[in-house]
């Protein structure tokens, strides 16, 4: 999103307007933008700054503080590996390592083809089926290291 197109500008302005009556709306505005576009690049932060009068420095500070906000776009499939305690003690580290090994990226990174992002999550509330992995909302329970390859392949096939 090097340049924002008109529709995007309009939508972001509309999101800012949604919270006009709120005392301190910045986090809410950014959450909505993150949800809508998947990331919050600098151009968008500048636009929000113009609209709200909050300085870009402050907006950038908030965007980089919270792990939900991202400066870069994420992959088509976001592989969320839970590394919460319940999952960790049941071998979640080996599971995320396997995803990393197969895709050649570390947690927080996106593959060059833009297909996959690996995220390390902290408890998704599926502790009874630990280790848990979620991919675009679908939860995979009790994931074993040797199942990882099959899971990745399923999405690779689906993408073609």
């Amino acid at each position, binding site marked *: 999103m090097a340049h924002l197109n008109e529709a995007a500008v309009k939508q972001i302005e509309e999101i800012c307007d949604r919270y006009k009556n709120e*005392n*301190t*709306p*910045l*986090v*809410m505005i*950014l*959450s909505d933008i993150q949800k809508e576009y998947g990331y919050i690049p600098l151009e968008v932060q500048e636009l929000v700054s113009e609209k709200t009068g909050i300085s870009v420095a*402050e907006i950038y*500070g*908030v965007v980089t*503080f*919270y*792990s*939900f*906000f991202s400066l870069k776009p994420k992959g088509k499939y976001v592989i969320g590996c839970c*590394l*919460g*305690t*319940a*999952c*960790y*003690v*049941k071998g979640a580290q*080996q599971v995320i390592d396997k995803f990393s090994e197969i895709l050649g990226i570390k947690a927080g990174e996106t593959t060059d083809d833009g297909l996959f992002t690996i995220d390390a*999550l*902290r*408890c*998704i*509330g*599926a*502790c*009874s*089926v*630990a280790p*848990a992995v979620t991919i675009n909302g679908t*939860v995979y*329970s009790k994931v*074993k*290291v*040797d199942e990882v390859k099959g899971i990745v392949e399923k999405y690779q096939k689906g993408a073609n």
Partner: protein
Amino acid sequence: MDFLKTVEDLQQLSAKCAGCFKAKIDGSDGKKHIVICGGGACASANSEQIKANMLDVLKEKDLLDKVTVDLGGCFGLCSSGPFAKIYPDDTLYTLVKPEDAREIIEKDIIGGEIVERLLYVDPAANKKIKKESEIPFYKKQEKIALNNCGVIDPENIEEAIGAGAFKGFVRALSMGRKEVIQEVLDSGLRGRGGAGFPTGRKWSFVPDVEGDKYIVCNGDEGDPGAFMDRSVLEGNPLAVIEGMMIGGYAIGASAGYFYVRAEYPVAVQRLKNAIKQAEEMGLLGDNILGTGFNFRINLRLGAGAFVCGEETALLNSIEGKRGMPRPRPPFPAVSGLWGRPTVVNNVETLACVPYVLREGAAAFAKLGTEKSKGTKVFALGGKITNVGLVEVPMGTTLKELIYDIGGGIPNGKKFKAIQTGGPSGGCLTAEDLDAEIDYDNLVARGSMMGSGGAIVMDEDNCMVDVAKFYLDFICDESCGKCSPCRIGTKRMLELLTKITDGNGTMEDLDELEDLAAKIKTNSLCGLGQTAPNPVLSTLAHFRDEYVAHIVDKKCPAHVCKNLMEYVIDKEKCIGCGMCAKNCPTSTISQTDYVAPGHKLASYHIDPLNCVKCGNCMSVCKVGAVSKQ
């Protein structure tokens, strides 16, 4: 939905709904009611589809007016979910799949016969149990915060009212503010968010000044592996709302804020729905029930930062800023949200408040120990048979929690430790099993109550690795405002990594302890002040494991990769070669040794090129590969 103008209006509605609710539970309405568990784990196992399938079958049989199907909150026994519970029979079906829907409707609901294969099997007695109330997991529990979770439809305010919602609020309205605070003080209720500060005391600190005051509900639930607050919010959102209204009334607040993790979309949606319904009925807004009490509730979502669970950081986050803690004093009770007096309470704390007002302080104080009253909800996880959500009276022993309720450690493994208090807490060991759960008791034993995460570890968990896991989490989540926490925890993590990599020295242990002491005393907020606890507590209980890593260069639990190896037992190996085929580094080769009774020569791992991926162990059918 009626608009309630007076307290009498609410009481009338309450009486009417109580009748409907009772009829639903005891079957006197001539209907059957099915509640499907919609808690986190069951929802991820597609429990919504079970409901949809049941409705389809009911429609086909033309029974939609005789049988209802609801999605309720967490049933607790997550490892046996998804569940379907049938009222009034009290039959509980476990491990239900969407394709079981038809059989349950046709055989049980229509045929009146039990679907035996879906009943809970008590592993201890190896016998099937039909009724929920007879399952050992539920026997020692006592539900106050989780009251009605998994019973009522969390999206239906009238049903909640029928089950007793707002009775506590009505009683509070009939009392003076100071009396309400006194009642909460008398109940002995202490904050369930971790520190255990007496709730009534906290409320009493709010000055009697004009102008805006706020009550904030902390639903950030950052402890990884804990899902108590989520389950309360999803299963009975109105209990927390009512608790907030009572607190708001007691401190003279005009508005309340919920701060909920964005990772909990279902909780957020149920809260929104409950707030909307309460507004439409006039239970929130101006001049509530004609009493002159004005109160509104707003909802804010977290954005993924553990430190925002700390109350002053949380307030900054609501104010749209980076969620960094503020120095205290001033305490939030004096200067909180937008500089106004503010009380921050945990979800479970607020969920207990309606009970205290409805049943009276004495009823609440009857449960528990001398200094810890009532109950506590725990999310039992890790190496335990019954993974799930439990609520036990304070004073229950760890043994009862882990063995009687939790069903013990699976796969015949040995219990090693239970971690409470998450990254701020510590571990309790076999020596502590007879300890009663109580705020002060757990602290005296080197851990803490925490918010309720309870992770059980067995002999296969390396305690040095667990300590490293928590520190890694802390380093990730330290907000960076103060250097003891930001830099100190990083140094500690480096030392632990050095030890688990096999390069540690005994001096490193002294340095860990020295750093820990400095970080604890010099950090600004609770995150830094408690960050060294997991290391200190594992050092205290499992120093020999640290020493084994450093001196013997061995990880006794075979977790730390540099300090363990995969070995093939040449006597057990049948020479099938599966391991060699699956080894990514081709470091397994066949020897010329044929074990007695076997036809093919056994294989051998050359440790030099082994990357410890574990493939060989998972593919070997005869279990010849082991970790050493």
